[in-house]
């Protein structure tokens, strides 16, 4: 049964990109839109003045500390789902275990908070 569902998903993955490709490609194939490119038109927009330098430079990413916290959280949270699905059939001990697990996560969050990792500079 599940195999059929996944075949449907596979078909959907093919259909879904075709839908947006059509309205983008059709006007160009049918020449509905004008094509009069010139040098000034193809310039990168920067408030009307001439573009200064490249956008592909090394740039300070302010949220890399958030990203580290996110990475840990996201991986740990995936462990919650098998537990949540089976929760009603599990003994009381499962609840205690998960509270401990979430508490460890919470301590990690508190540590990051205390260290100032959650402040936006």
């Amino acid at each position, binding site marked *: 049964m599940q195999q*059929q569902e996944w075949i449907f998903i596979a078909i959907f993955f093919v259909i879904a990109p075709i839908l*947006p490709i059509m309205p983008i490609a059709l006007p160009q194939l049918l020449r509905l839109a004008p094509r009069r490119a010139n040098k000034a038109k193809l310039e990168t927009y920067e408030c009307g003045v001439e573009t200064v330098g*490249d956008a592909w430079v090394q740039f300070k990413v*302010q949220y890399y500390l*958030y990203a580290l916290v996110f990475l840990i959280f*996201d991986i740990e949270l995936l462990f919650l789902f098998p537990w949540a699905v089976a929760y009603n059939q599990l003994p009381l001990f499962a609840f205690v275990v998960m509270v401990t697990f979430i508490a460890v996560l*919470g301590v990690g969050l508190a540590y990051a908070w205390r260290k100032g990792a959650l402040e936006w500079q």
Partner: protein
Amino acid sequence: MVDSLVNLGWNRDVAFFVASLLGAVVLASFGLVWIIFAIWLERKLAGRIQDRIGPNRAGPYGLFQTFADLFKLITKEDITPAGADRHIYNIAPIMVVASIVLIFAVIPFSATWVGADLNIGVLYFIAVGSLATLAIMLAGWGSNNKYALLGAFRVIAALISYEVPMILSVAVPVLLAGTMSMQGIVHGQSIAYIFVAPVSAFIFFVSQLAEAGRSPFDLIEAESEIIAGYNIEYSGMKFGMFMASEFIHAFVISLLTVILFLGGWQFLGAGHPGSELFGFIVVMGKAMLVYFVVILIRSTTPRIRIDHMMAFNWKFLVPLALVNLIVVAFCARIFVPDYAAAQAVADGGGLGAFLAGMFGVGFIAELPRAALCLVANIGLWVVASRLLRQYSDQERDRVRQLIQERRDQRGQTAPAAAGR
């Protein structure tokens, strides 16, 4: 449908493939066609809320305004900036729409109308939903434009933050229903989960809003700071795809909220097999209601600052979601729904029979757990909102003091400057 094709003498596998293909096309285009109406509705309502008339020229009540916009976009010149990375630049608008259309595959519109009832449907929509943000990142990087890149940075900051409370709040319906299939979660909602865990519903809705980049979290495309951000270099239909994806995303988050928290196609025990169309209407009706709230929020709230946005997430939503999960798990441990006992109560006559007849047997089975969770959730919300209020009062005092200090300083220096 597969059976009717097999009866016509088709090979079973071929029949299944054709039926799936047709279903996929219908389901995927449904989202895109529906959005033509949704865009009109949003503009009209936003106009009315802001004391304007909104679109009223093309067709009755401006209904054809979206078509007019569409034809304009089609006849626009398609420009690829000379400095852009062509491949990434062109893939981004396709990917952004495709990733959101993909979510439609697991949304149950009625007891049987569902694209694919995956047993990990929840995981699927979380995974696929993040693709849209990746596409926006591609757009921002591929355009080779500084504003676009800044917009993309903001999108990533929003995604990596709001993904955490979103996943935490989705774990609650999964826990209550005991399954990750979307259809299973709807089946579990004899009592809609918004009445069982309103805090989760709130967290889910807010974090989805942030991920879709809707107001008040629309600083990823703040036109007054970074000139529409990631889609600045796009023109014609490629820009149109970004715009369409934004509206589809807004509708998809309403649909997901309906499925996970508002009971999906369940409406007072109706929408069972045999009334598919009714179930579909119920889902769409509820989704329109949530969508209306989204529009209301969009047209009335100002844009929030990025540091506020991050602080609200990491210092409020994430701890709240963690505590909420523990609270709900605890309450769900005390009362496990007992369907056999509920059946006995329903057979016993009186009030039990009345409730069972009205809302179904599941309602009685779920009732003790739901009531306890609701009380616990409301208590949690009272505590959380009080903490939030306290913090905001402190913050307001701090800012007021800061302003006063600045004013005093200026008062002291001004005469000296005049004397010189």
